[in-house]
């Protein structure tokens, strides 16, 4: 074919050389690019497409539903969270045996799809029963049995968390920091996915202020309150690496800055002389407001962004991005408010959970995962999802310091709910004030983690309109931890 023998021999009479090398170079270059294109197409169709085509905007998924009976959603401990029943005429009904309990996890599939019903749509509508049976079904126009999607959610823990939160509005979310497996995700008030179509009008009524369809755990955007002091204290330590240990603040229950603004501690409590660790453990607003006035704005901003504020979270279901905004032109009061987690900062319980999970695992964050494995209609596992690292959020040094402070919060400060636990818990509570129609109210936060007999868990609790984080949220987190660690550990 293309023989190099001829190269250089083609010379026309006036001495102009005809060159073959450019032609070869162009040919090879084009072939290389096309190999890349074909490889990408194969990669897309085989590996990426299953994640893409379950998208609710893809009208074709409904076509798959004509060939396959939607599979079940199953909890990690084998409880059916969603199944499809067929009556004799072949009419299919999606049934959620637990009603509203798992609604924030499974989502719904009438009126569009949300939650795992949306995320796992493609898997649930695929069938991996044996190829002969499937081909026979295809040929005879019968439906094949769809694959079952097993989750990382533990049904008993979900129940415990839901009971512990009681009738409060709020969210409880827990995850295994070592693997990123999400163990429970409760959001209240919730809805019943069995009757979503009938309830739709009242759920979406503009006068309905319950927000049942909002998954507060991931989509809620709340002022973080004192849980944000994890960032403030870290920013302060970064700026004063040598002198932070000699930090002292005399708390009289309220702090008035040089411009005359006053910031009060929760309940007006006077903490007395506080070191940095004590101020963290007691959640002393005065001390942190003073720190906030001194911190460099750009340093604070970049720390917040390195901890995923204003960033996408590694989470595959819908969530709300956390927001942190501070600029040089902001007043002293705004900077002080920001330092104690008020101001314009908002974050989701999910985000807070990810931060404490990283602290539980030496500063490294695992990607939160909710899908565990897929089984075909015959109960054989044919695909497992594996834990994946996200990356380092905190240096080992910072992790150690923050762990000490969170431990002190339990032993000496606001985390007293964990004090008599059988395991060593680490916690930060928060009481975030917000303006409601009935005046100032408080969101109660508690983000905590613990290890026990080689088993670990991180929990974040948010209770809307609670009392303080320590008295409302921490006991809920304690109940979840007890249930998991004492049973598993």
């Amino acid at each position, binding site marked *: *074919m*293309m023989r190099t*023998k*001829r190269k250089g*021999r*083609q*010379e*026309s*009479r*006036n001495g*102009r*050389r*005809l*060159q*073959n*090398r*450019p*032609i*070869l*170079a*162009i*040919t090879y270059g*084009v*072939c290389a*690019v*096309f190999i*890349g*294109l*074909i490889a*990408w*197409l*194969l990669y*897309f*169709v*085989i590996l*990426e*497409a*299953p994640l*893409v*085509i379950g*998208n609710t*905007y*893809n*009208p*074709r*998924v409904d*076509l*798959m539903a004509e060939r396959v009976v939607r599979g079940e959603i199953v909890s990690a401990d084998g409880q059916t969270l969603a199944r499809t029943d067929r009556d004799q005429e072949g009419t299919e009904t999606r049934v959620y045996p637990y009603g509203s309990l798992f609604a924030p996890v499974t989502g719904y599939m009438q009126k569009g799809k949300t939650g795992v019903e949306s995320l796992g749509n493609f898997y649930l509508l695929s069938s991996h029963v044996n190829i002969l049976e499937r*081909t026979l079904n*295809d*040929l005879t*126009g019968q439906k094949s049995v769809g694959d079952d999607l097993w989750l990382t959610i533990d049904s008993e823990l979900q129940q415990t968390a839901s009971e512990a939160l009681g009738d409060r509005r709020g969210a409880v979310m827990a995850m295994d920091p070592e693997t990123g497996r999400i163990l429970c995700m409760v959001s209240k008030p919730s809805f019943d996915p069995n009757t979503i179509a009938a309830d739709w009008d009242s759920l979406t009524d503009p006068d309905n202020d319950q927000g049942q369809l909002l998954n507060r755990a991931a989509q809620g955007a709340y002022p973080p309150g004192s849980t944000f002091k994890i960032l403030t204290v870290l920013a302060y330590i970064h700026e004063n690496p040598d002198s932070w240990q000699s930090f002292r603040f005399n708390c009289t229950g309220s702090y008035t800055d040089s411009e005359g603004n006053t910031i009060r501690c929760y309940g007006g409590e006077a903490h007395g002389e506080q070191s940095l660790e004590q101020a963290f453990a007691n959640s002393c607003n005065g001390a942190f407001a003073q720190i906030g006035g001194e911190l460099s704005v750009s340093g604070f901003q970049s720390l917040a962004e390195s901890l995923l504020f204003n960033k996408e979270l590694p989470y595959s279901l819908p969530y709300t991005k956390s927001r942190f905004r501070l600029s040089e032109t902001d007043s002293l009061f705004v900077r002080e408010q920001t330092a104690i987690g008020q101001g314009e900062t908002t974050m989701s319980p999910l985000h807070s959970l990810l931060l404490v999970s990283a602290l539980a695992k030496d500063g490294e964050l695992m990607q939160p995962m909710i899908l565990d494995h897929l089984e075909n209609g015959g109960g054989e596992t044919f695909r497992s999802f594996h834990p994946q690292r996200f990356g380092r959020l905190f240096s080992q040094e910072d992790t150690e310091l923050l762990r000490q402070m969170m431990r002190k919060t339990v032993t000496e400060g606001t985390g007293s709910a964990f004090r008599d636990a059988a395991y060593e818990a680490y916690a930060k509570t928060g009481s975030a004030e917000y303006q409601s129609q009935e005046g100032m109210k408080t969101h109660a936060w508690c983000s905590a983690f613990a290890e026990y007999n080689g088993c670990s868990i991180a929990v974040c609790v948010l209770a809307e309109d609670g009392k303080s984080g320590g008295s409302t949220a921490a006991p809920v987190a304690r109940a979840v931890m007890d249930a998991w660690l004492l049973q598993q550990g």
Partner: protein
Amino acid sequence: MITVYVEISKYLIVLLMAMYTFCNFRYFTAAEAEAKEDYCAWQQRILLLLHFIAFSVLYFQLWDLQLLVFYGAQLLFFLIYPRLMGLIYRKVSRLLLNNICMFLALGMVMLTRLDMDMAMRQFLLVLLGAALSALVPLIMDRVLAIVGWRWLYMILGLGLLMLVLAAGSVSYGAKMAIELGGFSFQPSEFVKLSFVFFTASMLYHSLDFKNICLTSGIAALHVLLLVACRDLGTALMFFAAYVAMLYAATGRAAYVLAGGGMFAGAGAVAYQLFSHVRTRVAAWRDPWSDITNTGYQIAHSLFAIGTGGLVGMGLGQGMPNRIPIVEKDFIFSAISEEMGAITAICLILICLGCFLQMMLTAYYMDMLFYRLVAVGLGVTYIFQVFLTIGGVTKFIPSTGVTLPFVAYGGSSVISSFLLFMVFEGMHIIMMKDAEAEPAGPYTGRTEPEDAADLEEVYPEEEDPEQEEWNDED
């Protein structure tokens, strides 16, 4: 039963496509001319079978008698066209003809499935294109003066582009077509050819620096006119073709580097200057976040390709109509959805096979002018394929160009016919020369009008290697 047939047919189509593609590449590696003939003959049989299966599937779903008549007309075309061309031109390249027919067959199947009236209109234009373009090899063989008409090509190219700029109608943000008595005509499809001929003629005329500068200036004018029409995809194709031709003519890689640098610079400027470029790039990077608006086209294209999977949904079983402008820019996605990604990859490989054949022509042509035309048109063709397929699969940002022969569009199919027939013309000249050379370089050729040009073209001494490759291609 019909579902059974549809199911089985999709595996058959994938298998036939794979076999056809296999023949296509075995053709290149086969040493004997008879073996090459055999592969071409097999390709024709596979093509007809595939076309038959696809149309039978469509018929069983539509039960439309008109469809049978339409199928018959297409069948006649696929039977007659390659044979007729073989009769007129003894030395025609069967491989290129087969590939044209394969592209047309896939295109007609998909267009018929999408909208039969549209497919019929397209078929008439296919006939027109085939008839018009059949003259091209004859002209190339007889009229040697085409080598020197550089100013004519320039006036033609720039004139047509200015006409579009002045009187073109706008669709999807770009000025591309001129409306003429109910017909829409896309001049840039033809300027593709005149541009390559212009550049080849200029560089053939002289390779001194002054002339290269002049040529580059006029080439840049072509590109700028296209940019002014916001037809950035075509502008890119012209640019790539020009750089390739300059490189092939001079052998200096520096031109390629300079071209790459200019491309990067121009890309950055275009990104800043044009909002639609930014939109396209954003939709490429993440179509999902704005799926209802800017990401809509590419997201639906990916849904189609992804849902189809490797073997496809089966003809008539998918939803290709949900993709915007599916018949033009996104025909590849529709094929991948219903006939499968394997078929789609085979289609890519056949396009690449055409390009290899074109580069072989460039390699073996002895006259610089033809070499440059081959390089220029080859790169234009394959770059267009790359832009459209890369765009709809999210490999690169989409540029809104169409797949030659497969996509709907009259100007596009006629210009594609002309482009491929230029290669047939060169192939015929090459084969004739190869045959004639041992006896003497001038036999079998009409006397050219311009004797001065001829002297440059044909070396006096015989090339001892010539005999060897007679039987090779």
